[in-house]
């Protein structure tokens, strides 16, 4: 709600607010337009807008030609989903993955694209985006062919046109359920509000990300925004409204298994164990753009980790870094726990027993641990699963059989400690401690610092080589106060980095010779001049509208990334109204309201010499400076595992057939074929009618995520005192659900009970002649706290996006019935009966390839390509 004030302010200033959501929510209530949509239908919806733009040539042509890869020509080996019934070329049905070599730019040598750079596995079990860090993936420097007229049949622009040709308003309605006239209004509003003088922003959060095609949702928006010229410009962009406080910070300085700080990829066991190999893999040959300096960032990071122990001779301690050997994401880890492969689990500020998909699996897995450490503000379900989880109720777990030793540490809340939050705008804001933590509660900093200290003390005499990194680690933070609390600002300054001359002020100062140390290169500058820049709070009225002196944004306190794009190729603002950063001919430099995201003195007409590398290889009108070619990618030749373009796929579980292709679901989605993880049949498969309804999960303003922070607070609990589900009057009539009474939802995993809220805010959607009912399910409840209830996450199984391993928790299928669910062992039998009725086996719903036509088509297409190498 606090963030939403800015939406309201924009509205007050005349902005049109459009809300795309399956349900009519509080946001819809104040929006100008609400587009009802079926959960999981957004690619069709966004693709429809892209189609609208392309078919009417409403794109911002000058921007598109100059700043995107629209003109780039793709190899003739690329075959689109339109020709392969929903798959791209290169699919390997057995491995459920793509060989992405056929997706490359023409002229990029295939060897370079596919094999040379070991970092860039063409298909990989680990996440994709992080292979390349915050720079785009490397592309070959060999000459890329372009057709600035955008007419070449294999140029990105034309491919795009063909790809989205069938995403017509009629198709949008059939797939997403969004009525055509609403859709038309939106297309019109969005395009009219984009161009030289106006910009449109897309704001999303987990309605787009919790899908087995999640990354491609965002890619759709990226294409849209590039076509309309809405990137790098004020009022434009794609805003990921990050959730948890500083969740952005915890990706920048990651809590993710596959990243190092600043989006440097985590080294892998499969790769050469040396710094140069690592850097080379990351950067590629003669890499353009700023990512070319990634080695300096890495070395500086290692210097900050290992201090004097990191020398050029030992590769700055590179070999001390842990290496990953596959997917160690949260769900894989859960399964490994279940399989007894993992003895201990630290849960810090998370409540997986309630918050993670397939709650039962989470709890069963934790029951297999030797020890579990929970640090939290409240006694959450994750800490008490051994005595009161639903599985204790059904008899699947017995307290006396659980060997897990649970350690619960009370944590200090953000008001009880100093630190920073990084928000979605990449802005760091410092929070000062207001009160001392109560009782034994301690900050994370305290816990980990002192834990590290004690571990090092224990290992002081060890000569085991694997303990070497522990000896080498710099671990000497000053502490303060009666609790020996490490100084948070000292940590911030370590992250900022230092060189021979003291505190660094910009990542441009980072060196790969070991003379600089920096804990996170993108944060370099947050401590510029020895000052905590994140703590700046100059009121908005006392500074420019960009407010550069409020907090500090990475990189380099830049508030809008790629802002070179806010000026035309010649360096002039696209319009007075939207002037942001421009070329000042007299001064011979870039200037404007924000810190220019460009080499300050590189002229707009600068043309890079053919052999240039790094930033110097970018032309004066290549605004996307982190990308290997300085362009915004309408088409992603590499970097994604499930396709260079977004394509509509149905969710893992869907009562609806994919109206566009024979391929039903994302063929690369990550599934786990195990007894514990049954999925439903979809569409016209036998048994699908056992789970005829779509349900989606979401948040209520009154609660917070897994509920540990809200269910126990009286003032919040009383505002939403019961787990309820939202259904339409039509569905209520169909299933005899009574407003205010109990009902229960059934999936192959669980049955959960809730109160019925019959509301017109949920409407069944008419799609291709049939009516699809959706059920809204808030996911905040669990068994602890003042308001208690079943947990929505128990309904889900595990199906993940391949790129980032996010769970599909925004959509699945289910049944809904009146009355409460059975209890005790009867519940297990009840769910089993439902599974049997649907004829579910572990394989159900998990087939990668569902297009009957694919094999024939792909053989024919390959033959055609072979016969006609030049393309049309």
């Amino acid at each position, binding site marked *: 709600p606090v963030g939403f004030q800015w939406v309201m302010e924009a509205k007050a200033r005349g902005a049109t607010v459009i809300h795309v959501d399956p349900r009519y929510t509080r946001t819809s209530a104040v929006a100008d337009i609400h587009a009802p949509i079926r959960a999981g239908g957004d690619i069709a919806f966004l693709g429809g807008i892209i189609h609208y733009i392309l078919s009417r040539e409403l794109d911002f042509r000058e921007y598109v030609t100059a700043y995107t890869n629209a003109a780039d020509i793709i190899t003739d080996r690329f075959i689109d989903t339109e020709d392969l019934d929903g798959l791209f070329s290169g699919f390997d049905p057995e491995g459920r993955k793509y060989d992405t070599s056929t997706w490359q730019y023409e002229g990029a040598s295939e060897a370079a694209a596919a094999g040379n750079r070991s970092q860039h596995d063409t298909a990989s079990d680990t996440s994709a985006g992080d292979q390349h860090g915050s720079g785009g993936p490397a592309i070959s420097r060999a000459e890329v062919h372009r057709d600035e007229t955008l007419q070449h049949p294999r140029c990105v622009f034309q491919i795009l046109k063909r790809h989205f040709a069938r995403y017509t308003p009629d198709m949008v309605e059939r797939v997403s359920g969004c009525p055509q006239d609403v859709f038309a209004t939106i297309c019109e509003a969005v395009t009219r509000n984009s161009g030289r003088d106006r910009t449109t922003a897309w704001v999303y959060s987990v309605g787009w990300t919790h899908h087995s095609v999640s990354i491609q949702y965002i890619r759709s928006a990226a294409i849209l925004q590039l076509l309309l010229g809405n990137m790098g410009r004020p009022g434009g962009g794609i805003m990921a409204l990050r959730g948890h406080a500083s969740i952005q910070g915890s990706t920048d300085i990651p809590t993710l298994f596959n990243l190092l700080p600043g989006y440097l990829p985590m080294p892998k066991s499969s790769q050469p164990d040396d710094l140069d190999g690592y850097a080379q893999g990351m950067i590629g040959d003669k890499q353009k753009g700023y990512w070319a300096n990634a080695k300096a960032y890495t070395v500086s990071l290692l210097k900050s980790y290992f201090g004097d122990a990191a020398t050029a001779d030992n590769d700055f301690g590179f070999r001390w870094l842990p290496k990953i050997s596959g997917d160690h994401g949260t769900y894989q880890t859960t399964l490994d726990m279940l399989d007894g492969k993992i003895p201990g689990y630290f849960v810090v500020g998370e409540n997986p027993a309630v918050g993670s998909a397939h709650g039962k699996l989470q709890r069963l897995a934790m029951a297999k641990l030797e020890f579990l450490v929970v640090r939290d503000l409240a006694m959450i379900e994750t800490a008490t699963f051994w005595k009161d989880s639903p599985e204790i109720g059904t008899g699947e777990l017995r307290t006396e059989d659980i060997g897990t030793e649970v350690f619960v540490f009370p944590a200090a809340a953000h008001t009880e400690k100093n630190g920073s939050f990084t928000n979605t705008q990449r802005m760091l804001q410092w929070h000062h401690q207001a009160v001392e933590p109560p009782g034994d509660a301690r900050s994370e900093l305290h816990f980990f610092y002192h834990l590290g200290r004690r571990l090092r003390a224990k290992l002081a005499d060890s000569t085991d080589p694997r303990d070497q990194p522990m000896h080498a680690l710099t671990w000497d933070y000053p502490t303060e106060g009666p609790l020996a609390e490490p100084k948070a600002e000292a940590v911030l300054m370590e992250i900022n980095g230092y060189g021979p001359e003291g505190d660094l002020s910009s990542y441009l100062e980072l060196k790969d010779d070991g003379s600089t140390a920096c804990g996170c290169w993108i944060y370099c500058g947050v401590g510029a001049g020895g000052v905590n820049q994140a703590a700046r709070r100059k009121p908005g009225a006392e500074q420019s509208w960009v407010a550069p002196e409020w907090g500090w944004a990475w990189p380099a306190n830049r508030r809008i990334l790629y802002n070179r794009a806010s000026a035309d190729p010649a360096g002039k603002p696209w319009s007075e109204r939207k002037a942001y950063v421009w070329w000042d001919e007299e001064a011979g430099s870039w200037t404007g309201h924000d810190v220019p995201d460009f080499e300050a003195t590189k002229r707009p007409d600068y043309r890079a010499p053919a052999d240039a590398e790094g930033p110097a290889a970018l032309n004066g009108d290549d605004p996307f400076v982190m990308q290997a070619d300085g362009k915004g990618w309408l088409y992603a030749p590499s970097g994604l595992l499930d396709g260079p373009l977004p394509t509509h796929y149905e969710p893992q579980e869907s009562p609806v057939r994919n109206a566009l292709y024979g391929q039903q679901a994302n063929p690369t989605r990550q599934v786990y074929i195990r007894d514990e993880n049954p999925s439903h049949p979809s569409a016209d498969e036998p048994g699908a009618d056992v789970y005829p309804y779509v349900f989606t999960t979401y948040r209520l303003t009154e609660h917070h995520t897994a509920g540990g922070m809200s269910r126990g607070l009286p003032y919040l609990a009383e505002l939403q005192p019961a787990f309820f589900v939202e259904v339409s*009057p039509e569905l*209520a009539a169909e299933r005899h659900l009574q*407003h*205010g009474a109990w009902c229960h939802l059934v999936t192959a995993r669980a049955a959960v009970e809730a109160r019925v*809220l*019959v*509301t*017109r*805010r949920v409407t069944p959607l008419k799609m291709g002649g049939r009516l699809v009912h959706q059920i809204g399910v808030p996911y905040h409840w669990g068994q602890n706290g003042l308001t208690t209830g079943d947990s929505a996450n128990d309904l889900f199984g595990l199906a993940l996006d391949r790129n980032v391993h996010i769970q599909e928790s925004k959509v699945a299928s289910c049944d809904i019935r009146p009355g409460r669910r059975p209890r005790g062992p009867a519940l297990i039998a009840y769910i089993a009966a439902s599974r049997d009725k649907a004829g579910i086996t572990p394989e159900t719903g998990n087939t990668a390839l569902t297009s009957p036509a694919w094999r024939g088509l792909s053989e024919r297409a390959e033959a055609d390509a072979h016969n006609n190498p030049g393309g049309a």
Partner: protein
Amino acid sequence: MTGPGRQPEMSLDGGTPRHRAGRRRGRGDPNATVPPADFTSYYGRPVVKASPWEKDIPAYLFLGGLAAGSSLLAAGGAASDRPALRRHGRITAFAAISLSFAALVHDLGRPSRLLNMLRVIKPTSPMSVGTWLLAGYGPLAGAAALGELAGSTPRGRGPLRLLSALRGPAGVGATLIAPAVATYTAVLLSDTATPAWSAARKELPFVFAGSAAAAAGGLAMATVPVSQAAPARRMAVGGALTELAAQQVMERSMGLSSETLSTGIAGRWHRLARVSTGGGVVLALTGARSRTLSVLAGLALTTGSFATRFAIFEAGQASARDPRYTIVPQRERLDAAAGETPH
């Protein structure tokens, strides 16, 4: 704020329920206007709050009336040399006002702070006015009653004699205040946003005055020898007739909220009141010479008065709990002012 166990009217669309009005019209009420077919409210929730008062308050109203009427009877008795009537009147007045006071205190949220009532004198607050009336009336009625008791002891001495001597002046004082004690309670109820009470504001003082007379007269009829009871009977009958007639007029001017007098608990009290009072009048007029019939008539009239107070109290509570009685008249007023024909 939702009381536990409340079963809200849940409409399928989860939205604002529309209420059908026009059912349950008071029978035989030729003047009732046809209310709009439906009206809108917020989930059928009350707009105004019903008073938090319990049975103590109608009892308090009744007892206050009884006390006031009794004081008047006592005064008349004193003046006309009807000692039994005088004596009965003074003692009843004091007993009733004491009970009434107890009822009032019992209904306070913080009884220990009763005396805070005496911090201020506020003409805008009928309760403040009433408190001061009672503060004056109570001791005087008390003195008069105690004087009666003292006077009846054989050989009065010292304080007793003083009391006995003071009963005359005290009785006069009480009598002067009594009429106000009888009618201020009407203002107490009407000076609220409770639809039925507020709508009854014009006639309610007369209803209560009549009711006070009926109660006091009735009780005196039942206790005082027939020989001295004639004024009590006249007062009872006159009061009862006033009570009935004033209510008739009142129900008309109450408009929609008069419904609440004929339905629910209030309806039951109201019917009892009418039967009891009406019957009492008939009995009183026909059986004036009979001690038994007089007792019966007196009790009937007292009961009628008691029931009237409960009827009016409960009608008010019911009218506050149903948003219709707040919204419909106000909406009609607005629409009329806006020149719209009510539909």
